[in-house]
């Protein structure tokens, strides 16, 4: 069996697969990149060739102008993959956002899985995480501290709907990352029976349409910019977090400021963001999901890409699991968690 360290090199700006001359989620332009999902800290513009799921490629086309039709960019459905330089690559659902994938690499009898970002909870807008057995499991650790235990999503959605109903003269403005979290919140609202139109910030329109085109039904969405202020009383508005305390929000009827993020678990963090209604809804695995997943995958070795790696390393140590931190740079932990 080959030793992983000889064929997979962690660099601060990404993982380099040597025999295939290919990078995974590089944070700077490279010749060949396999991309786990469409968030900006994993998917960048300017690569020569991109290998990703069809949804991720579509998202990259929308956000960074990547040419999906170009023959050097290749799309692979979940379970499919390609071979290069003796390395077999395949894509498997990560449950993070639409199109998000874990990448399994097999080389000389060794199996390595890189999760990208992932979660284990059900999400109406993307395929659920699959446990892929491997020798080396390369995991994220955004919420790698035991203080992070996300409550059941249904509780948070009920809290949101309760807040709208409690003050029918106001609206609730939910700050949610434009790719993934926003559509998740909408999908969860629909699943909970909220069938009124959901009002959105213009910056989300195209991404919501992309989700709909990929079969994710978000119900009726309307643009805030095309709606009378008074008509939005008692309604739910979804906008990117940056718009929460922006002048843009002045067009809303006395909004209650909410924010959907795993960071909302920590009260003082929520206060920092000037949030009145924190919603602990995350697209990242919480502490229990991270540790359970390591147990279920049961790798020989765990590598940790980014987040609170110290916490997860300590857990691995306590459970006598071999682990190391990779210290990747350029991962934006604040916005989309």
């Amino acid at each position: 069996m080959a030793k992983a360290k000889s064929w997979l090199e962690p660099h601060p700006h990404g993982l380099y697969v040597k025999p295939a001359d290919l990078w995974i989620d590089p944070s700077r332009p490279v010749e060949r990149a396999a991309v786990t999902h469409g968030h900006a800290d994993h998917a960048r513009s300017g690569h020569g060739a991109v290998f990703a799921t069809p949804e991720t490629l579509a998202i990259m086309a929308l956000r960074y102008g990547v040419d999906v039709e170009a023959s050097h960019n290749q799309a692979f459905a979940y379970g499919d993959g390609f071979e290069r330089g003796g390395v077999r690559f395949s894509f498997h659902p990560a449950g993070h956002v639409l199109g998000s994938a874990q990448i399994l690499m097999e080389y000389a009898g060794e199996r390595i899985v890189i999760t990208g970002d992932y979660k284990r909870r059900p999400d109406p807008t993307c395929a659920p995480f699959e446990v892929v057995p491997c020798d080396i499991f390369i995991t994220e650790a955004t919420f790698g501290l035991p203080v992070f235990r996300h409550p059941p999503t249904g509780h948070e959605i009920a809290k949101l709907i309760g807040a709208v109903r409690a003050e029918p003269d106001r609206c609730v403005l939910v700050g949610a990352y434009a790719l993934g979290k926003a559509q998740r919140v909408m999908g969860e609202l629909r699943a909970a029976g909220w069938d009124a139109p959901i009002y959105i910030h213009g910056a989300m329109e195209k991404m919501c349409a992309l989700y709909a085109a990929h079969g994710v039904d978000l119900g009726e969405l309307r643009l805030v910019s095309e709606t009378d202020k008074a008509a939005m009383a008692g309604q739910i508005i979804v906008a990117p977090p940056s718009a929460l305390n922006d002048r843009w929000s002045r067009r809303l009827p006395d909004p209650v400021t909410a924010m959907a993020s795993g960071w909302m678990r920590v009260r003082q963090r929520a206060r920092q963001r000037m949030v009145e209604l924190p919603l602990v809804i995350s697209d990242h695995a919480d502490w229990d999901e991270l540790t359970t997943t390591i147990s279920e995958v049961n790798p020989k070795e765990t590598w940790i890409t980014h987040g609170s790696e110290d916490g997860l390393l300590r857990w691995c140590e306590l459970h006598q699991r071999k682990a190391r931190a990779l210290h990747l740079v350029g991962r934006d932990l604040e916005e989309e968690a």
Partner: protein
Amino acid sequence: MKAFAALIDRLIYTRSRNSKLALIADYLTHTPDPDRGWAIAALTESLDFPAVKSAMVRTLLATRVDEELFRLSRHFVGDTAETAALLWPEKPIPFRGGVGVGSVGLAQGRETPPAATREQSSQVSLPSPEGEGEMSVARAVDALSAATRATAPAILASLLDRLDADGRYALLKLALGGMRVGVSARLAKQAFAQAFDVPVDDVEELWHAIPPPYAPLFAWGEGRAERPDLKDVAFFRPFMLAHPLEEATVDLADYAAEWKWDGIRVQIVHGGGETRIYSRGGEEISAAFPELVAAFDQDAVIDGELLVRGDAQGGEAASFNALQQRLGRKTVSKKMLAESPAFVRVYDLLAVDGNDLRPLPWTERRRQLEAFVPRLADSHFDLSQVIDAKDFDDLATRRAGARDAAIEGVMLKRRDAPYVAGRRAGLWYKWKRDPLTADCVMMYAQRGNGRRASFYSDYTFGCWSEDGELLPVGKAYSGFTDEELKWLDKFVRDNTLNRFGPVREVEKSLVLEVAFDSIHASKRHKSGIAMRFPRISRIRRDKPAEEADRIAALLAMVT
């Protein structure tokens, strides 16, 4: 505990004062005795459980959670109570299943993986919360009050075991204090007045006469009982407060001028055979100043400034710096009593020999005050003098020339005004001396607490010595806007030279204009000086560090 936890949670995220008042008032009207009384006492930091302290909570946590994981978590969260509340292991909740929402669309039809097992639950067996009634605030208070150092850990553990994360947070904040929900005693009293539609001045007076959980106060508020009788109680009278005088002049025919002393405002009350000292916020601080309690033997209520005498001032009033050593103590050593003896400079008389003087005009109260002060021991009480200025310009000149270490500025009091609670327009003005400023260089930065846990918001700055060495002269954590804080935080991160735990040493390149009220000689600092109330007044990105002030320039400002 659920309603109390929900109240705290709402208060944390509510910024508007009116919304806070409404939330508390709503809680007070809908919660039974004695829970609401204990809750309001907790919100205003009026409870103390000597056996329960953060060190004990940390030790207790170490029996349930790995110490290293606790340390990492505490560092991230920035607050012991919140960390402990989130970390306390509870009954396993599977992260799938039972949620009801979410398993639609693409997720449908997939097999549900095995439920997660909680990290620590295999290590301890917890009592089942089933079958237990809702734990009341009163029950928690009773249990914590009965705790001794030996029994406290087990008692706290059993309470924590029966609460969810929000309940644990509420309990720990109640037990440890440091609620930080922006509820002052004054706000709580206003909420009470609003909840029961009673005058807030009455609430202020009664509040300190009745101990938590304030049952007679609620009975009166709800109209079930008469106003409690305060005849034989040394109760607190709400202070009359001043507005700052801004770019206006007043006619000294209408206003009397006095020095504004740089000590702490106190009210000394003698009634029902006992003497109590109250601070401005209405907290009782008698224990810290036993010599004043002993010396005040007249049936009266005075308003004045508590100061200490200093050798450097020839036995006269010393700077605030000297007074600080005596604040916040529960007991005082003989040495401290001898080194920093306290006295009160009296400026108002609110009651004497059973008569309430508050409705009388200032001139009349002043006349009675001047007659009264000689009845007190002159070792511990003296009269705050009226400044005999010809006119406003003369007063301005005297204010500018005042060099006394304990003078902070001038007070202007309307001669015909009665003594009324709170800050009323046009009656009293404070006219502080202009702040002094110095250009200093940022040397170290430290992360803040609470809301600022992720920001480097506390700055140590220095000035140049004669040998061209930068020596720290002070530390400030206010005076800047949120935008400036973001900029400063980024500057610290981008210019870090060294890390010492939570402290970062930075490139000595940024000049900060620091404002302060006064400056004093200090043996504790290598620079030999200490600033009073330093704050960042401007970020001087335009100024090279070499051009910041010299220590010598600061020494020239010492009073």
